[in-house]
């Protein structure tokens, strides 16, 4: 039985890594999508979009994988959480649809390019905001009876979840700016650095607010962070976050640093992610069901684990390979002489 129980930690790690990868990968391309709306002319929009065109659909498949892996490994969480965030999920999906087709349509349908340009930028921002609302609603917890969500579909819209929605817009914006700094040069890179600074300010303000708000609102979370010796053990998290924030700010200013802003932002995301995980552990349906209670049958988890352990490394390998193929700066001197 101990062996059987050990599937849950493995699935927790796989799902945690998968969700984090999704947040990073689709995060930067959603962020690029938002900044796309700020690009001044067709030439810069073309370049901005070129920087993510070969990889965006691969990034979005992580969302599907995250969704179905949650359903397969922790079905109880899926069937409670998804109905509880009915509207944000639907809004996110519709926005992703719009933004996804805009890649192709904008390129091939010159007559309606402005329409698709808007679709791309607004789709990105709406999808991001909706994801942030989902996150906020998740942290606040749901009204549950037995195995079902029993609140209303509007419960998820609260001041807190609106705040996390805004936070994620700044966060993905920062990731996107970091990506563009790596991929572009000259004016466009300078613009990305400028946008990055504004996003960073927004991100830090939101992180601070959320960090104060959650322990005040949830006694369990306050208990987790402010009881001895937890406070001492967890102290590195706020300290590292502050250091990372400072590093990102410096590298945004420093014209020679191409990779600094993106890597630093990844670090910031990791810290925030860890912060949330520490607050909620071991719950997967906050304040109600633990990972173990929500897990699917060992037989289901085992069956999927076999393939996952074989396929996931391969997937990671050739995902990296396709990033490698399209590495380097997107150049402005091709195609418009």
């Amino acid at each position, binding site marked *: 039985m101990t062996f059987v129980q050990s599937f849950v930690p493995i699935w927790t790690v796989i799902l945690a890594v998968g969700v984090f990868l999704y947040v990073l990968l689709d995060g930067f391309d959603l962020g690029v999508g938002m900044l796309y709306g700020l690009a001044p002319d067709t030439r810069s929009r073309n370049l901005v979009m*070129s920087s993510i065109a070969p*990889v965006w659909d691969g990034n979005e498949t992580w969302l599907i994988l995250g969704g179905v892996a949650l359903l397969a490994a922790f079905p109880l969480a899926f069937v409670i959480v998804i109905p509880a965030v009915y509207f944000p999920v639907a809004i996110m999906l519709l926005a992703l649809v719009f933004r996804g087709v805009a890649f192709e349509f904008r390129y091939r349908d010159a007559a309606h390019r402005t329409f698709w340009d808007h679709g791309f930028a607004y789709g990105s921002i709406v999808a991001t905001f909706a994801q942030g609302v989902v996150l906020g609603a998740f942290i606040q917890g749901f009204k549950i009876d037995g195995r079902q969500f029993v609140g209303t579909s509007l419960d998820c819209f609260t001041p807190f979840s609106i705040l996390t929605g805004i936070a994620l817009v700044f966060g993905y914006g920062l990731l996107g700016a970091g990506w563009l700094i790596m991929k572009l040069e000259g004016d466009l890179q300078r613009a990305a650095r400028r946008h990055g600074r504004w996003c960073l300010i927004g991100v830090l303000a939101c992180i601070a607010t959320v960090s104060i708000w959650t322990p005040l609102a949830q006694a369990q979370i306050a208990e987790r962070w402010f009881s001895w010796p937890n406070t001492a053990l967890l102290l590195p998290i706020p300290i590292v976050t502050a250091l990372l924030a400072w590093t990102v700010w410096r590298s945004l200013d420093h014209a020679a640093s191409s990779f600094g802003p993106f890597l630093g932002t990844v670090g910031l995301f990791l810290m925030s992610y860890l912060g949330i995980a520490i607050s909620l552990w071991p719950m997967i349906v906050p304040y109600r069901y633990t990972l173990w209670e929500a897990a699917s049958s060992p037989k289901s988890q085992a069956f999927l684990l076999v393939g996952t352990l074989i396929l996931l490394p391969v997937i990671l390998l050739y995902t990296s390979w396709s990033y490698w193929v399209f590495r380097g700066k*997107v150049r402005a001197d091709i195609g418009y002489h």
Partner: protein
Amino acid sequence: MHLDPLILSRLQFVWVIAWHILLPAFTVGVASFIAVMEGMHFVTKREIYLQVSGFWIKLFSVSFGMGVVSGIIMPFQFGTNWSRFSDATANVVAPLLAYEGLTAFFLEAAFLGVLLFGRNLVPRWAHFVAALMVAFGTLFSSFWILAVNSWMQTPAGYEVVDGRFFPADWWQVIFNPSFPYRLAHTVCGFYITTGFVVLGVAAWLIRRRTFVVEGRLMLSTTLWLLLALVPLQIVLGDLHGLNTLEHQPAKLAAIEGRYDTASPAPLTLFGIPDGKNAVMHNEVAVPWLGSLLLTHSLRGEIKGLKDWPVDQRPPVGPPFFAFRIMVGCGLLMLALVIWGTVLRRGDRFVTSVAFLRSCQGASILGFVAVLAGWTTTEVGRQPWTVYGLMRTADSVTPSLTGWDVLVTFIGYILVYLIIYPGGLWVMAKIVRHGPAALGDATIESGRPMQPVAALPLAEGSAP
């Protein structure tokens, strides 16, 4: 006003899946077609294969992009609108869905970038492999999704504990009784759907006299292919029907429009079903033929719907008519393919305007048949989500109100009514450009791809 979340959720699901299924119906076949063309080019090095492949890759990339985004919506429907179904069945079906994500989707998405943008960035063999992988990916995708669908139709390999399904034998879960037939019938249908699109586009190119050589290559290859596939599909369909008779007799009764058990049973060609009185009006039927076709004997018994309690009968109208539409499409296809083959004598298949025009008109036949077939099998499964075990009415998310679903349903309607015509418009433009547009080298080796940067600059916005 009272709005029923169950009915609205069903309509919403119909809406999003019906639009979605059109894309795999096309991309599964076209991915294989591209792989074949790339393979022919790899072996023969003849430029024309590359040109044809490049042309279809463009159409593929548009439809695949739409398939990805409309596909993301599907698994989330299980959570948003069908949470009780998900709660009951997740242990059995969710791993299959996850395998779909793992094996197929990633194979497609990861190699797609190389197929679309990487021709000059990777060695020739690697590009061919990427084309093959994308094709395999679409097939794996179909495999897992149809395994899930088939399990809902003919559940096997499970045990029920506290009202929820748990896996007992994975082999039986996946290879459940209807799965092999459904998989073969569906994939063959997808190939045929693509085939008729290729036929229609090729006929149009030939008639316009701009890309006659390319058009001829497409037309000829595809016509041979369809000459094999269309008759094969009729056989597969017959086998699938026999499988339905064995495992889902109530669905078969609905398809046949049969309320009363009969032996020998006639074949009802047409009629107006009247569910309330359980009778067919204005029936046109051929005696004996029903028994002959379905039981392969003249005296075989076909059960009628009256053998089941009223609350376990599927509605008759949709499966009855949809089935006849599907079969009608199949017969039209068969006629066209035979006609084209006869016209090969003296090369008239590329000169006969009547034939070429018919090919153009027939390009939507596959889609109509796929939708009709899907309607037949899914409505025929009602009133169950898991056949005979879990009712559709017990599957819907309990927290939803009718208004909730109405709002999202309107959202899905609006968005789809923008993106699908948009996609069609874009694809029509690609077809109008024809296969020659290939070779406008927008990609330089060693550099990141630039298809988007190659856009003509809009007036006035040039730097």
